[in-house]
């Protein structure tokens, strides 16, 4: 345990080791540690932000869903109203159409009947004239007595 030249050898070794550690060992390891710390910090912040965003999005989605539901209900309501309205309108129009068609039919029938009546009258008057001709046999002039005949026709 006496002091000797080993002291110098160990001193040289010590300084060389410290120098090597300072140049080649310490900086890269510490750099990696610090970079990773930053990365973790960033990651944590990002995850927190993500959680917040998710919460926000969820709230937004719920609000939108609610709105959509009310809108849908409104639309359905409107559609129902419109449908009843349409049905009512159509029913009304149908009724009107029927009335119109029926009225038309009635007038046509009336007109037909009048024409038939006219025909009948004419034929009856002709028959009456023919009968009168046959009864009178002679001197009766159709042209002279036509006013009497017309009067007869209107009376029919």
């Amino acid at each position, binding site marked *: 345990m006496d002091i*000797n030249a080993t002291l110098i050898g160990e*001193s040289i070794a010590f300084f060389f080791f410290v120098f090597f*550690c*300072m140049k080649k060992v310490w900086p890269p390891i510490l750099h990696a540690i610090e970079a990773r710390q930053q990365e973790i910090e960033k990651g944590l912040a990002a995850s927190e932000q993500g959680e917040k965003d998710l919460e926000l999005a969820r709230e937004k989605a719920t609000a939108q869903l609610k709105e959509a539901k009310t809108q849908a209900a409104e639309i359905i309501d409107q559609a129902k109203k419109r449908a009843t309205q349409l049905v009512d309108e159509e029913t009304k129009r149908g009724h009107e159409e029927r009335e119109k068609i029926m009225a038309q039919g009635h007038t046509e029938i009336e007109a037909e009947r009048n024409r038939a009546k006219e025909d009948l009258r004419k034929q009856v008057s002709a028959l009456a004239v023919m009968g009168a001709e046959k009864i009178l046999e002679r001197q009766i002039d159709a042209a002279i007595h036509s006013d009497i005949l017309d009067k007869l026709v209107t009376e029919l």
Partner: protein
Amino acid sequence: MSSPEELTSGAYISHHLTNWQVSIGDHWFMVLNVDTLLWSITLGIVFLASFRSVAKKSTVGVPGKFQCAVEMIVEFVNRSVKETFHGKNDLIGPLALTIFMWILLMNMMDWVPVDWIGKIAEFIGGFMGVDPSHVYMKPVPTTDLNLTFALAFGVFFLIIFYSIKIKGVGGFIKELTTQPFGHPLLYPVNFVLETVTLLARPLSLALRLFGNLYAGELIFILIAMMGLFQLPIHFMWAVFHLLVIPLQAFIFMMLTIVYLSLAHEDH
């Protein structure tokens, strides 16, 4: 201990506490403790190589298990530095890490049972034609004063270097002379007091580490001579060193940081 009958317990202990020394000159100083150099430099390279391998492929992404362990140590040292040292200095972090890891690894050699490495060395020495009783191998480098003083002087050199760099030569001398007494007549007294304080720092760093580990190793050697009873006692002493080994490494590192932060303080 090739032939236990020939060795007394005193010889056994001194054999275990003697360094493998190689003379490189005529002067008494020109001697190298080869075992201290071998183990300390090997462990230093183990530390640097393992940490360098992590540093080379360190990723910002998910780290592997070994990277995690290394990063935990680096983070621990970095936190210790940041809590104590408030200036900006690129050296102090790596310095603290090197001191902590190197001393920790060297102290951990204490856990290797005292005869294992010695026996292997004796076997290799015998194989190479050396008398096994003359093969010395002390595998715990921190039980060698040369190593602890080398570390302490390194730190001391940095204390002086940064004191002068931050405060200037004048500021450093002023710091040594104008405290703690304000009167100019007492400046020489101040100088003596402050110089003793300054010199006590490396001395206490070196002797604390050496004393703790040397005593621990000595007890391990004593326990190794106890026969069968050594097993539980050795276990207990090793468990106790679970505390001593990292604590001494931590104290050395922490005091280095404190001394250097004091050197950076400008009054």
